[in-house]
Each structure stands twice: as C-alpha cells, then as structure tokens.
C-alpha cells in the first residue's frame, strides 16, 4: 500500500503516542484513506465533537476550545481533516493508564467511539484500551437520565443576572425523593474574583477560562436554595441511553479543557446546548444564539425542540418560609422572629399553649428562618446553639405540621414574555406630536408582564428610544440606555433587603435656551420597598430611592452636572393584567450645571397576551424653570 500524503506532524504525533510505529503505519494509512473516502471530517458529528463553528467572515471553521490539549494537530483548531487524522494516529498509542495519565483512546473517548463506529476499527491491528478510569466514573454516575437545571436570576450576583443553567446526571437507583444524590455537571468561569465590576468586565471579554466540573447536586441545591435563595426549575430531558452515554463520554473529554468564558454568548447555557448537540447531532440548538445566550432563552429552545419530558419546581428556602408564614395564624407568626433570634423561649405560655401541630410548624419555620438569617449574614447571637435548641424542641413534638408544599407557579421561568422587545407608539410632548420606536434586546422591566420573571428585578441592556416629532424638530434619539438594573425588594418584619438601581446611558436634558442635547447620564442609588397594606402578601409595592446623578456633556455649564434627590413610587397590580405605577422623581443638581429638575407621572400596562402588551404613560416634567406634559400610548411586542 502506498503511503498517503500526510503532513510531517502526523508522524510527529504518531511518534509521541506510538513507539510501535512500524507495525501500525499501514493500518493507520488505511484508516486515513477510508476516512477521506467517507469524508468523515466534513460530518456534522465530527464538527460537534470538536466544537467547530463557522467563521464569521472568511470561509472555514474554528474550534471554540482554547486549551492546546484539545486539538491534537497543530492546525487542528482550524482544519477538521488534519485533526481527524492526527486523532486516528493518536489512537495507536500504547500509553498505559495511570492516575494522572490516560491513553488517547480514553482521553478522547467520544471521538474514539464515533470513529470506531464509522470505520470499524480492527482490534487485531488497533488494540482497544479498556479505559478503567472512565468505566469506574461512569459506573459511579450510573446514568438513567439527564436533567437541565435552571436556577432563577439573582440580581445581587453579577454572574447570575439572567440565571444560570447546569446539567444533572440522574442515576438509575434514584427517584424524586433522592435526587440530591445525583451529580451536577457545571460549566462556569473559573475565577476567585470577588469584585463584581472586575468580574463583569472580564466576563464580557472572555477574560476567564471556562471549565466543566462535577459535584454532588446537593451542593448546588444548598448554594441556590439556602445560600442565594433562588427558586430552581428542573427539566427532565428525554434522551435515549445511547445519547446520554455520548454526553458523558464527551464531558469526560472536556474535563481538563477550558474555553474562554464570555458572559453573553459563550457562557454556561451555550455550552450545555453544545453538549446536547453532541448527543443528538441532528439537533440545532445553538444557531439561535450567535450573539447572546440568555439562560431562559436556551431553556425555551430546549423545550421548543421537544427535549423535555417533565418539569419539577424546587422552591428556595426563602420562598418556603414566605409561603409558610402566609399559612400561619397571627399567633403562630408572632413567635417566629423572637424564637429564631433567641428573644423568646419555647417555655413561654405563648408557645406552650399552641396545639402540637402548631408547635411543629412554628419550630420548623423558626429554624428555617434562622438559617436564612445566617445565610444572609444577619447578626444573631449564638446561632448554632439557637438552631440546635429549636431542633431538639421539634424532635420532641410527635405531631406533624402537615403544611402543603409550596404551590408550583403557573408560569415557569421559560414561559414568560420573550426577552427581546419592540414597541411602536405615538403621543404628544410639550405641544408637539410624535411617533416613537422603542427596541430592547434584553430582558425585562418592571412594567413588563411579570409572570415567569423574578418579582421586582429589572435588567435591561441597550434600550433605545427614537422619536419623530412634528413641528420641524424631526427624528432624534430620545434615550439610549446600554445598562439599567433595578432591584425592588420588599421589606417586612422577616426580610429586610435593600433595594437599589443603576442606569448608564444618554438622555435628553432641557437647557435654559430651550434646546435639548443628548447628555451622558449615570444614575442610581439605594432604596427601600414595602408591600402595602399587608407587608406579607399585598399586590401593591411601594418604593423610595435616594438617587444620585452625574451628567456629562459639552453643552452643560462646566461640562457636567452632579445631582441628588428622591425617587418614590408604587407598583400596583389592579388586576392580573393591569399594572399602574405612579411616581415622582426629583434631582437637585448642585454642582456643575445647577438646576432643580423633577418629574411626576403615571405609567400603566395592560397585558394582552404573552407576546403583546399596551402601555399608557403620562407625565409632567420640570427642568430649567420650564415645564411640560407628555402623553404616550404604545404597543409592546415581546419575542
């Protein structure tokens, strides 16, 4: 058999992996020849396994993995064929498996399985390795199914503004009651950065290596439910045993590999989709997410492609406490705080007079609440001793509280409105009519329909408003806000979170001469919020912020303005579809271009269906001793 033309480095790899080159070369040639005939390197399976993606401009592909170890050929990151041939050469290695080293057949076990399936390796001429470590690992996992796990967004954790997704390997001998024992496969930026801003910037530009890791699911549940108080949705996938095996083999391959982690596109959710595509190569999940991959959108895609068999809701510790507090009688509820903080005793008559079921309920909720306080770092004296006493008391109560479980929300995180929005509207401002176009690629504002989103959490990126005015003013950008985050978190006798908001962008400011330049604006501050009149369960949320503003523009006196002032308002759900928000905001610009500016208004939204909503906003604004009214009616479409 004649030697096929092969680049020199195939021999180099080959020499590294296979001292027995003389015997193997003819068979390797044969395999390479067949792989070329079958055009294996052009097949979708190969591209999926190697994480090749099409170049944006030039023809050809590039691999997304960023560790050198993943591509065996020096040009393997961009040349699928040369990579495939280098891989075949590597399979002839006779490296013995140790605790720190594996044979390439085991290191790249998913590639081996696929190529073996395509080429039918002859065991007499290519010795098959046993891959003991992989087999033991797989045996421990004992897989029966895979579940996509989706913890809700958490505004106070910059890496989780949109939520996060991970994959769970469900073992054969587990059931719904013992899922804690499953393993989670997590893809995350590998960093110990605690500075939120540094984290955000590095995350945007791929500054961290993203790696896959595995851990018992109970550690993730503790993290989400108990430490971060995020509700979790679990989506059981309907993959076949063969497909599950491919995912696990591929995860094994990716163990030591890193990818540059990008917040927006190449993030946790994106790579989980890639894993599923490896399992089912016909599936196209990732092409929707060229620019950004928001976890809830990736989950929607998985649901849309029919991959989900069943969903399970796992409420967080705080959600359970809130629900059980609502179920309590006033007498029971009044005991929770004092007991959890050690200001009352179970010997008090108020407690001993309760029926046994009531005592059980009070003790359980008090203990959970104490754990919540500990997780949120609230000061409690001797928390361990307190916790232990509550448990001992509980263990002495034979009765059960028999509280029903937290009801499953009617709308899941993947079933809310679409995360992109486009709106058209028309109105009148200061005597001039206008039409308005409004676009926002992601994600949710407080006046959008709330179902499926975290209450009080607003995250918007690249919000743009353009208006065309009558009366000779013409078209102009009214407002461009690349970043706006608002967290309105209600306080009551049990929970005392701070609210906060920040926005960065450009908006119009009226000057003394009546002109309205576009001014750069950073605005934000802390706040407090309450539901009224009942602090536990009302539909009206009242908030008060103390905001500061920095404006910058060459059109301003001294080129800047610095201001401070309150923003107060209320979010009132008049019906399930109809929300109103009266508000007043004032800013005293005391430095730079001084002025007293204030706005009072009423925003209203009526939800038409999941994808459409109507808005009607009226406001009165006052700047530079001038004032005017604005009325705007707009139709919002979510997609």
């Amino acid at each position, binding site marked *: 058999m004649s030697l096929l033309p092969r680049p020199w480095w195939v021999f180099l790899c080959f020499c590294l992996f296979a001292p027995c080159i003389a015997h193997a070369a003819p068979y390797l040639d044969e395999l390479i020849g067949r792989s070329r005939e079958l055009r294996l390197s052009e097949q979708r399976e190969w591209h999926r396994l190697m994480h090749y993606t099409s170049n944006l401009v030039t023809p050809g592909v590039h691999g997304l993995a960023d560790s050198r170890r993943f591509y065996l050929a020096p040009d393997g990151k961009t040349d699928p064929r040369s990579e495939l041939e280098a891989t075949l050469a590597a399979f002839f290695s006779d490296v013995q498996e*140790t*605790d*720190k080293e*594996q044979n390439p057949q085991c*290191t790249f076990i998913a590639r081996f399985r696929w190529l073996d399936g395509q080429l039918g390796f002859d065991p007499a001429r290519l010795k098959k390795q046993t891959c003991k*470590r992989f087999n*033991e*690992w797989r045996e*421990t*996992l004992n897989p029966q199914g895979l579940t996509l796990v989706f913890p809700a967004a958490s505004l106070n954790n910059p*890496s989780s503004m949109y939520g996060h997704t991970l994959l769970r390997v469900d073992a054969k*001998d*587990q059931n719904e*009651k*013992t*899922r*804690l*024992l499953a*393993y989670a496969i997590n893809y*995350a930026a*590998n960093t*110990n950065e605690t500075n939120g801003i540094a984290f955000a910037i590095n995350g945007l530009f791929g500054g961290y290596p993203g*790696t*896959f*890791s*595995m*851990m*018992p699911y*109970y*550690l993730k549940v*503790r*993290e989400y439910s*108990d*430490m*971060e108080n995020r509700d979790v949705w679990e989506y059981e996938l309907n993959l076949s045993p063969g497909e599950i095996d491919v995912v696990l083999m591929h*995860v*094994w391959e*990716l*163990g*030591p590999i890193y990818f540059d982690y990008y917040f927006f596109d190449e993030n946790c959710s994106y790579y989980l989709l890639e894993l599923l595509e490896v399992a089912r190569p016909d599936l196209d999940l990732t092409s929707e997410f060229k620019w950004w991959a928001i976890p809830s959108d990736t989950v929607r895609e998985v649901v849309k492609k029919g991959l989900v068999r069943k969903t399970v809701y796992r409420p967080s510790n705080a959600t359970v406490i809130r629900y059980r507090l609502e179920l309590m009688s006033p007498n029971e509820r009044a005991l929770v705080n004092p007991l959890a903080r050690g200001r009352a005793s179970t010997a008090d008559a108020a407690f001993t007079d309760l029926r046994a079921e009531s005592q*059980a309920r009070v*003790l*359980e909720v008090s*203990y*959970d609440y104490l*754990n919540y306080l500990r997780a949120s770092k609230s000061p409690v004296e001797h928390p*361990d*001793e307190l*916790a*232990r006493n509550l*448990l*001992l008391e*509980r*263990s002495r109560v034979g009765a*059960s509280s028999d509280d029903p479980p937290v009801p499953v929300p009617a709308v899941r995180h993947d079933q809310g409105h679409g995360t992109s929005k486009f709106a058209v509207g028309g109105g009148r401002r200061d005597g001039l009519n206008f039409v308005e176009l409004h676009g926002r690629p992601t994600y949710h504002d407080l006046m959008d329909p709330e179902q499926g989103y975290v209450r009080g959490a607003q995250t918007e990126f690249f919000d743009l408003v353009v208006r065309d005015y009558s009366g000779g003013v013409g078209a102009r950008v009214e407002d461009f806000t690349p970043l706006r985050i608002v967290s309105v978190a209600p306080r009551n006798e049990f929970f005392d979170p701070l609210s906060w908001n920040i926005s960065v962008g450009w908006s119009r400011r009226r000057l003394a001469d009546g002109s309205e330049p576009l001014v750069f604006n950073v605005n934000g501050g802390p706040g407090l919020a309450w539901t009224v009149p009942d602090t536990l369960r009302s539909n009206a949320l009242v908030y008060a912020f103390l905001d500061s503003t920095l404006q910058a523009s060459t059109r301003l006196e001294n080129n800047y303005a610095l201001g401070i002032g309150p923003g107060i308002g209320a979010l009132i759900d008049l019906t399930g579809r109809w929300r109103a928000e009266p508000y007043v905001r004032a800013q005293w610009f005391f430095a730079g271009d001084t002025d007293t500016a204030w706005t009072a208004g009423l925003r209203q939204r009526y939800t038409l269906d999941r994808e459409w909503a109507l808005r009607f906003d009226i406001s009165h604004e006052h700047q530079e001793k001038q004032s005017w009214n604005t009325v705007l009616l707009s139709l919002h479409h979510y997609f």
Partner: protein
Amino acid sequence: MKKILIAVVISALPAFAFAQQNNIGTCGWGAKLFDGQSGVVPQVLAVTTNGTSGNQTFAITTGTSGCTQDGVVKSSWKTAMFIDGNKDRLARDMSIGNGETLDSLAHLIGVREEDRASFGRTMQANVSVIFPSGSTTDDSVVALKQVLRSDRELAQYATSI
C-alpha cells in the same frame, strides 16, 4: 438511658478506631485527622462552602484528589461528604423524622423501604446525639454509626457508613 450510654461510648471512642474501621485514613487530606488534628471532612469540603468554587476538588479526569476520583466522590467518603454538605437540612429533617435530605441519607446507606419508618423515628429521637452541640462532621458520622449500631433493626446499616 440509651442515649446517655451512646454519648459515653462516642466520647470515649478514639478517632483512629473509626478511621481504621472505615479504611478512610488513606484519603488524601484525611491523614490529618488521624494525626490528632480535627475536622477532616470540613477541610475536604471547605472548598465547597462558598458555593461557586470547588472546581479543584470536582474537576473531571484529574485523577485522585482528596476524597474524589475524577470528579466523583469516592464511595468510602460519600456518607461523610453528604452529611457535611447537608448538615443544616439533615438535622432539620431528622428533627421532623422525614424529608428529602433524610430520604437521601437513608438511600445512601441502603436503608430498605420497610425500615424507613423506623429509621425516621430513630433519627428523630437521636438528633441531639448525632448533632451534639459544637459538633464537627466527624462527630456526627461517628455518632450516626453508633446510633444505628445500638438499634436492633437498624444495626445492619451501620456498616455501610
């Protein structure tokens, strides 16, 4: 009376005896405990308590690392690891006599369906023994084993911890 007896037995039980019985002295950092230092499992799990890290311990295909092998918990460590990772929830479920965390522990040590009710009752009665005040995970693992051992029906499960 039984509880007091158990407590006496536990306090008298030298840590190394437990280690030998369970053959876990070979587990990486584990050696530290048996040199007379305390808190083997907390050391192993320290990486996981702040939530997001732990990549070192649970990296896949890195071979043996402490109590994990290629990212999964070694079988000799799984009960200790579970108790350490679920202390608050487990203690809570024990005090109630049932719950997801207790179910998972029962499954982990192989408690059969017909013994589940008695397992739950025994755990509820002994929550103070298994989680004595100021206890470490090591104390709890040893105590759990003793509690099971001194119960006629449940003694069979003590060996799988």
